[in-house]
């Protein structure tokens, strides 16, 4: 039997505020297969972004294990985690988070700096990623010269440029109009179906969640289904 691609085991996460311990996630157990497109839903403060951050390796649980392709990411130190993220995770943020002083092409090329690729290869990869999201002709535009939808597509190109196995998307359509949101969701759907990317998406939007293969609900730090 093949082990699930992502295994979240008995995760507990709390924050310390002064002397008060505030629990955010309680006893989370989750298995996600490779190539899954899963949406996490739930009210604000339910812990869905925290769970996403833990799986993406940008935060650490208070206790529990997260195994991804056999690697326990909770055991990695900061430097190891940085390397692991650069190879395995692509990030899509609600507010795109592009670097304003870099062009679309340079933004997409940014994570490729961390790879051993040559300058020429990096550029080819970045151009290809921009072509995948349909923005090849806008590669020399700065973020301020793009619409919100286009910025998010550049962010998706940046997320897939290094060909990571996992894409994590935190409210990817939260700042977009309906048409742009639809374009972005369509793109994510394609990445999942055609490139077999494992996508974990946090959203409040039921229409966005409908594009996922499965939906998990969180409430008060617990998974409900």
């Amino acid at each position, binding site marked *: 039997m093949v082990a699930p691609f992502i295994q979240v085991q008995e995760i507990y996460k709390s924050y310390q505020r002064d002397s008060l311990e505030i629990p955010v996630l309680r006893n989370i157990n989750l298995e996600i297969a490779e190539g899954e497109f899963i949406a996490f839903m739930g009210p604000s403060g339910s812990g869905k972004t925290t769970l996403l951050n833990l799986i993406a390796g*940008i935060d650490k649980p208070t206790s529990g294990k997260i195994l991804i392709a056999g690697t326990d990411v909770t055991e990695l130190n900061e*430097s190891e985690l*940085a*390397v692991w993220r650069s190879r395995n995770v692509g990030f899509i943020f609600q507010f795109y*988070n592009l670097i304003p*002083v*870099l062009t679309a092409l340079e933004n997409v090329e*940014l994570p490729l700096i961390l790879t051993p690729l040559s300058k020429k290869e990096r550029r080819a990869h970045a151009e290809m990623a921009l072509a995948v999201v349909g923005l090849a002709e806008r590669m020399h535009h700065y973020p301020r010269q793009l619409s919100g939808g286009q910025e998010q597509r550049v962010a998706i190109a940046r997320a897939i440029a290094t060909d990571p196995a996992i894409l994590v998307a935190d409210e990817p359509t939260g700042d977009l109009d309906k048409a742009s949101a639809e374009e972005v969701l369509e793109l994510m759907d394609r990445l999942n179906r055609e490139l077999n990317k494992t996508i974990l998406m946090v959203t409040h939007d039921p229409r966005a969640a409908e594009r996922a293969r499965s939906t998990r609900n969180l409430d008060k730090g617990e998974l409900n289904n």
Partner: protein
Amino acid sequence: MELVRLLFRNVLRHKLRGILTIVGVGVAVMAFALLQTVVSAWYAGVEASAANRLISRHAVSFVFPLPLAYRDRIAQIPGVNKVTFASWFSGVYIDKNQFFARLAVDSDTFFDVYSEFLVPPEQFEVFKRERNAAIIGSDIAQRYNLKLGDIMPIEGDVFPGQWEFVVRGIYEPRDQTTDPTTMMFHYKYLEERVRQEMPQRAGDIGWYIVRIDDPDNSAAISQEIDKLFANSRAETKTETERAFQQSFLSAASAVITAMNVMSFVIIGIILLVVGNTMIMSARERTHEFAVLKALGFTGGQLFFLIAGESILLSLFGSALGLGVTFPAVAGFETALPKGWFPVFYIKPETVAIGCAAGLLVGVLAAIIPLRRVLTTRIVEGLRHVG
């Protein structure tokens, strides 16, 4: 796209702030270099001192003369290589504002001991043959448009009367530390008139310059000279040329120290200027740095971006400041009364300290923002609204 491109783009991300910071650093570095140049100018005489030269003067004060007869006795002391002497002539050339040193010297020996005055041999030969001939520094020749053969009329004050000298030699300073503004003429010419007009002052000289074989023996030889003339009508005080020059600065030492301290306070001000810019810059980009960390950028790469930006701002400013310092120093020198600072130039050390200060300030100014960026957790950085 290389990381260095992002670094350069970040430097001028906020153009006005970046330019103001660079200009601020530039002005401060210029002020630092100007103050250091003035301080160096004060110490020019000290720095030009030779280790193997002693100055023997009247024990009471420099203004009292010594007998010429001391020369041969000093020359006999073991370790003494050559003895020469000079007298302060002073006088007024054109008007009282035209200041430069005018010395009556023993022309047979003086230029041997002061080999830093480079006189063309043919000019020196002519000078030696003519009793009222003078040798002047190249700066004096340039300042007063004097050529070989020109007459320099001087109204005497220390030695009253009308004096006329013929320019027979123009010396070039050996290097930048040598005073190019001195006039020297034959002591014999002075002595000749003194014997006729002021016989009570005949046979007096101002001070002896004693060249010794080994600088390590300067203290012992100084003692030996002073012992030789102890309890005489003109006791001597002998010291190294450096100590002698230093004694002229004692009155102004508080001002010089203040200027020196001020120049380094200015470096502190640069640190605050660049530090402030970097703290603001890094705070505004907390979110962006969190994104870079999430993408996998390491602490070393973020150090490169932040410290690099800080160092570039500081170095650009330093380069601007040092570039402006050269015309500023030239303008400052022009504005000063003629002859105020005979040796006035920007020392290579000042330029080196300016550059080093730029680099150091760049590194130090990056510490606080860097610490903040490196210790901020990614999730906190992503939540930051700046």
